[in-house]
């Protein structure tokens, strides 16, 4: 699915250059649920932008689904983003004054062919994230957790192979965060590839695999033998809330 081979990324040009990624190599297979971890400034956002084709590496090779994307032009990269990648951001990035459904429809506008059943696809994506009853709500009428789930629905509507989430729970309270992670778990169970970038160990431990970045390099890459159980944690949280 993803194959990174000695990826580097340097900022600035000419005299002063700052290397951020200094040779990253790893593979992510189809259907994996991996977390990319690291403290701030270790290049995980940069890596996320590269993986999401929003940025180009300064060196190295990036194969996405077998295609070398390092040399593609803007139009081709945009097309790949649209077709193969779904983004989930820390700040949700929903369009204001626009209904949940219209927000979810957004990627379809840029698809090569607008599906005739686009409305149904958007509604279905909202059902998947548990917002069947919020289809026509606007972002300001939704809670943070609900907004993030609309954003996930938007990431799903094009049926992408890869879901890239950048600190998806960073702006959410614990319970909303767990609900979002619950959605990821279900998507993973359906066979989707999910990459979550986070600085939060607790969030990372929901994934099957953790890749730790340090100073622009992969410091650690390990399997999680017993990923955290979202349902159990949610149930426990509810109990605590009930007792309090």
């Amino acid at each position, binding site marked *: 699915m993803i194959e990174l081979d000695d990826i580097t990324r340097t900022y600035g040009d000419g005299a002063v250059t700052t290397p951020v990624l200094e040779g990253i190599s790893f593979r992510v297979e189809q259907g994996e649920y991996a977390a990319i971890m690291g403290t701030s400034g270790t290049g995980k956002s940069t890596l996320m932008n590269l993986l999401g084709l*929003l940025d180009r590496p300064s060196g190295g090779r990036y194969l996405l689904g077998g295609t070398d994307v390092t040399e593609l032009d803007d139009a081709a990269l945009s*097309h790949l*983003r649209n077709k193969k990648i779904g983004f989930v951001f820390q700040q949700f*990035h929903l369009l204001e004054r626009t209904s949940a459904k219209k927000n979810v429809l*957004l990627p379809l506008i840029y698809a090569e062919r607008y599906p005739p059943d686009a409305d149904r696809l958007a509604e279905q994506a909202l059902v998947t994230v548990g917002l069947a009853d919020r289809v026509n709500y606007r972002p300001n009428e939704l809670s943070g957790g609900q907004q993030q789930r609309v954003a996930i629905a938007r990431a799903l509507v*094009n049926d992408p192979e890869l879901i890239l989430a950048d600190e998806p729970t960073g702006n959410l309270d614990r319970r909303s965060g767990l609900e979002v992670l619950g959605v990821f778990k279900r998507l993973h169970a359906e066979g989707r590839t999910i990459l979550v970038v986070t600085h939060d160990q607790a969030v990372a431990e929901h994934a099957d695999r953790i890749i730790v970045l340090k100073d622009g390099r992969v410091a650690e890459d390990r399997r999680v033998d017993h990923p955290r159980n979202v349902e159990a944690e949610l149930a426990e949280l509810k109990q605590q809330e009930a007792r309090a």
Partner: protein
Amino acid sequence: MRPLRIAGVGIEALAAHKLRTFLMTAGTLVGVAALTVVMAMGEGTRRKIMKRIQNFGPDAIMIPAGGGKRPGPDMSTTTLTLQDADAIRRDVPGLRIVSPMAWSFQMSVKRDDRHYQAIVWGVEPGWHDAWRWYTVTGEGISAADLATKAPVCVLGQTVKRELFGEEYAIGQHIYINRVRLRVAGVLGERGASPMGGDFDNRVILPLTTAMRRVMNVDHLGAIRVITDDPARLDEQAEAIGRLLRKRHHIEPPEEDDFRVITAEIIARFATGSSRTLSILLAVLAGLSLVVGGVVLMNILLISVKERTKEIGLRRAVGASRRDVFTQFLAESLSVTLLGMAAGLLVGCGLCGALPRFSRVPIAISWEPIALAAAAAVAVGTFFGIQPARRAARLDPVEALR
């Protein structure tokens, strides 16, 4: 179609920000409205001139007595004669009709107790053809009338109406300078004269009757010439000028005591008053379009800045640079096209209202619509490209931060 879908995004943004959209539209609206009025005035003036040229006769040369610049009649010059007309007939080739005229302006025409101030022309039978102006009832001036100095007249529509109203005029009598004249015919309606006056305010007499019996003069007021070949009109006008100068013993630095007038000269005088207003409005139209375009560009630039995150998101979900460019250019073009439509409506409204306040001739044609569309597209493109380019160049990573 994908580009249309993306253009639709730009148009949706307009619908969502109505005040902003109105502000962006205003300049184009005023510009196009002014443009429409200018064009309508231009077209109105053109038609007025065409009408005057048509009335004057595109194949005609008028030689009125008296020099000077303005093509109005001069009653005091007595040097233009029937012999001059004969000489032109004889010496200038390619002329179909040479029609000498004696004329008097402001003569009192009486019938019983009714008076009317009319222009009186003494003419030869060829006059009817020279002006393509014929009687609608009764007879015109004939060769026999001319030979016998017959006391007959032909009335223009205005004179007929003033003296006879709805009555049948043929065979009745009128008086000019106490000369009793039988009404032989009534001319067809002619409208405005080449100089803008009422052309139907005329009484036509046989030239001999006019010179000997009514006006008591030996000289002519004017000679009208119709050419066989309009392509040679200027050359013939030159020849006539040379001939008359020679006959009147005028050496070039000396001023002519006649003028040679063609349709071209008439057209030059007809442009007149609406010109200044046209220029002002054209300047206003241009300024509004430019200022409106700058306002449009600025609002779009601000909007690009405000919507940085939105643009970043669109890029993330699959919009290419080109798509973003298309979206913003579509937004800009939609604004100016909207302004164009509103401007055309306002402009046409003004054109409808203008004749009530002013005598400026107005005629609406398809040209302003074509020009307005071209202006709208030009302004929308020119001032939309910069913001669209800026939006397209945004780095999605930066934009999403």
